[in-house]
């Protein structure tokens, strides 16, 4: 674990030399033109489909950058909110091996998700990682992660040139980049930030088709291969299906299907969350939700051909879905009875859950509350049973004593059914706080889903704190001042050093998080998500 992190740090140091570099001249940036003029954008074929008015709207989120050869644009595992379009030059996309597929999937939570790290994981620090054997690229040894932007054979690279787009899937879905991008020659790149990327997709069918085609080419097929629904299907069938499915992008609150209206296919959630509601009396109840990998429309299409939506399905955030048409679904079920059974099972589970929510309104209230409070996103949520908590604040003091005197959370937050859902970091599935960090100081710690901030890289820009929807990142005055050094921007020198700080789950400590360990009443617990929280609530009430 530590070895892998060291490689990354070394790489970062080689590239940046100091924490300010990404804002300065040492990062390989030759020229940067922010908010380019409409005339300048019109010179680039990427923007052919957009009129002047649209280009004016896009301009604030677009920059033109010229990079030196050998510049690392982003690393494997980085979260970026930028897509790149190559105007001139070439870029290599390769796996640097920071995360092996098994390491990426390695669970760090135990059954109760209260202990964050296994001793076995710590032992990895002492043992050098075995060198992977070189294999010929085959579907079997192709490195594929659900987060994959590029379907890369292990230890191989893809060279992109003029007219190619990359980084867009990670940017759109909030997934980490699963490959490293490095310029091979001097490159002129159009860098498109997420808001512009979304507008461009909405406005131009050609651009949407281009991005979708890239997704189909680089990611869709391997994703479909590992989709549980299609387990056991032969490759030729999946390949043909990959060519036929629709890729659907939804804005927050966009309705995918309205209760009572005809259902137009089976949807699989690629990213984001989908909320399912049903009409009850004059109002609506939240009956379930679908996370990444969830299927929607199964019950509707299984019960009758061209059935109607049983629920109203709406996207909670910017979501990406795959739609399989009814006829393709029927082909699938005719050819593979196992897939049919799996679909039935998923449909029955969903109907059961919905029924439960209708019978017991508190279940619906719980789901609604969980959606609001971000519990669906969380991998490790600190909750406190207020029936037992003596308000002694030992949890906060324990946290402070473990982290050099500064606590990384306060015993404050939202109350639900007598439980306090604290604002300690939830270590989200899709951590938006990682997006846009100029130095990569906030990152996955390479241990499960833990998100950490590396103080040596933080420049106190507050981007992560502003991005976090749950106020889990606080700016902390370290009591020191920025040094009077040439490496530090002049305006910052001598000013108070205020850095971002947040919970890191005490991931290096095999004894677990200090907050839980320090609670004398045993009422502070870490829950691994909404289902676990529901169990805790049920047990204690």
């Amino acid at each position, binding site marked *: 674990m530590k070895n892998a992190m060291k490689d990354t740090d070394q790489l970062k140091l080689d590239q940046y030399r100091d924490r300010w570099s990404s804002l300065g001249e040492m990062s390989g940036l030759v020229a940067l033109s922010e908010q380019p003029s409409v005339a300048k954008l019109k010179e680039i074929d990427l923007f052919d489909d957009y009129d002047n008015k649209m280009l004016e709207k896009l301009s604030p989120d677009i920059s033109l950058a010229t990079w030196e050869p050998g510049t690392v644009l982003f690393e494997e595992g980085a979260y970026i909110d930028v897509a790149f379009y190559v105007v001139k030059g070439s870029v290599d996309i390769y796996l640097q091996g920071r995360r092996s597929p098994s390491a990426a999937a390695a669970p760090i939570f135990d059954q109760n998700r209260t202990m964050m790290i296994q001793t076995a994981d710590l032992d990895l620090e002492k043992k050098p990682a075995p060198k992977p054997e070189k294999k010929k690229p085959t579907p079997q040894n192709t490195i594929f992660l659900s987060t994959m932007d590029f379907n890369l054979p292990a230890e191989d690279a893809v060279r992109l040139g003029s007219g190619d787009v990359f980084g867009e899937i990670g940017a759109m879905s909030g997934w980490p980049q699963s490959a490293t991008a490095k310029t091979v020659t001097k490159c002129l790149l159009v860098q498109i930030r997420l808001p512009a990327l979304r507008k461009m997709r909405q406005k131009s069918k050609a651009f949407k088709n281009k991005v979708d085609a890239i997704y189909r080419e680089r990611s869709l097929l391997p994703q479909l291969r590992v989709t549980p629904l299609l387990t056991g299907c032969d490759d030729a069938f999946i390949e043909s299906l990959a060519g036929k499915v629709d890729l659907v992008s939804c804005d927050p609150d966009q309705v995918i299907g309205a209760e009572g209206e005809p259902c137009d296919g089976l949807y699989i959630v690629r990213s984001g969350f989908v909320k399912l509601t049903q009409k009850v009396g004059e109002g609506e109840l939240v009956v379930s939700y679908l996370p990444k990998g969830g299927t929607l429309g199964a019950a509707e299409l299984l019960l009758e051909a061209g059935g109607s939506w049983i629920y109203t399905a709406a996207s909670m955030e910017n979501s990406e879905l795959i739609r399989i048409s009814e006829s393709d679904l029927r082909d699938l079920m005719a050819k593979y009875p196992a897939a049919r059974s799996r679909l039935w099972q998923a449909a029955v589970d969903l109907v059961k859950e919905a029924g439960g929510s209708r019978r017991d309104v508190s279940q619906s209230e719980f789901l609604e509350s969980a959606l609001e409070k971000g519990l669906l996103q969380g991998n490790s949520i600190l909750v406190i049973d207020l*029936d037992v*908590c003596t308000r002694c604040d030992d949890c906060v003091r324990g946290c402070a004593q473990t982290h050099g005197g500064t606590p990384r959370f306060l015993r404050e937050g939202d109350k639900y059914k007598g439980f306090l859902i604290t604002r300690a970091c939830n270590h989200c599935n899709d951590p938006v706080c990682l997006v846009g960090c100029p130095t990569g100081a906030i990152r996955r710690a390479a241990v499960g889903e833990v998100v950490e901030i590396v103080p040596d890289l933080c420049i106190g820009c507050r981007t992560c704190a502003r991005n976090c929807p749950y106020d889990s990142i606080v700016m902390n005055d370290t009591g020191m001042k920025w040094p009077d050094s040439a490496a530090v921007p002049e305006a910052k020198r001598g000013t108070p050093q205020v850095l971002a700080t947040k919970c890191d789950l005490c991931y290096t400590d095999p004894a677990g998080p200090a907050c839980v*360990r320090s609670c004398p009443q045993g009422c502070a617990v870490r829950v691994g998500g909404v289902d676990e929280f529901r169990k805790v609530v049920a047990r204690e009430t």
Partner: protein
Amino acid sequence: MSRPGTFALKKWVRSPAWMVAFIVGAGITLVALVANAWLGSLDPGNAWGITYGSAAAFFMLAAALYGVRRRLLAVRVGASQKWLLFHVYGGALFMLLVFAHTEFRLPSGGLNLWLWWLSLIVTVSGFIGIFLQRWIPRTLNSALETEVVYERIPELVKEISGRAEELAENCPPAVREHYLNQVRPNIQRPQRRLGYFFDITGGVRGRARDVAVLSRVLSRDDREKLDELERLYRTKLEMDAQYSLQTALRTWLFAHVPVSIALVVVVALHVYVVIKY
């Protein structure tokens, strides 16, 4: 959250295993006492008595270490919860052993008498603490919407008071008068009230009652201002309830900790005297 008015045993006895261990420990002590009475006499100076006394001193010192543990939370010496459980059950066993050591009666001699009374005060204050620690959190959680960190209450009340003052300045005369007479005297600083111990919601409801009457005679806009003022006032009153009960959770320690320290000193003196003379 348990339903108000119900007795949830699991909320009072958090660890049945420790309770069982205590019952076993107490049982062994009582069996030893019966055997002691059967085979010899109850006397602090004989082998039986010295054993009770030594065991009591051991449990007292071990239980007292919890105070040290609380100051060293980052040190990996087991979960705090286990330390507290030992503190509670070990402390209870300590008192039983003290009674055994003193033949279940008041000892003679100034130092011994001090020791006996200090032990009793520490144990009783400990039990009061346990009661408060079980009862107050449930009471706070049963009806209050606001959850607040004790140390932040003065700062938050000041903020609420400022916002209320600002709002009242833009209110019609009737609302402003209500604010000046009813709200302002109670909103400016945190107030502890005994009444919250008897009815956690009563104080809040009672004080906000007049607002409903006033609301009927106002225009829609003014009613909104009044509602906002009332919301601020209710939040402040809930903070008062938190302040009152959380103060009790903190102050009982002043009855427990200093006496405990005195007890440790007197026990050390007692052991020294016994060994020396």
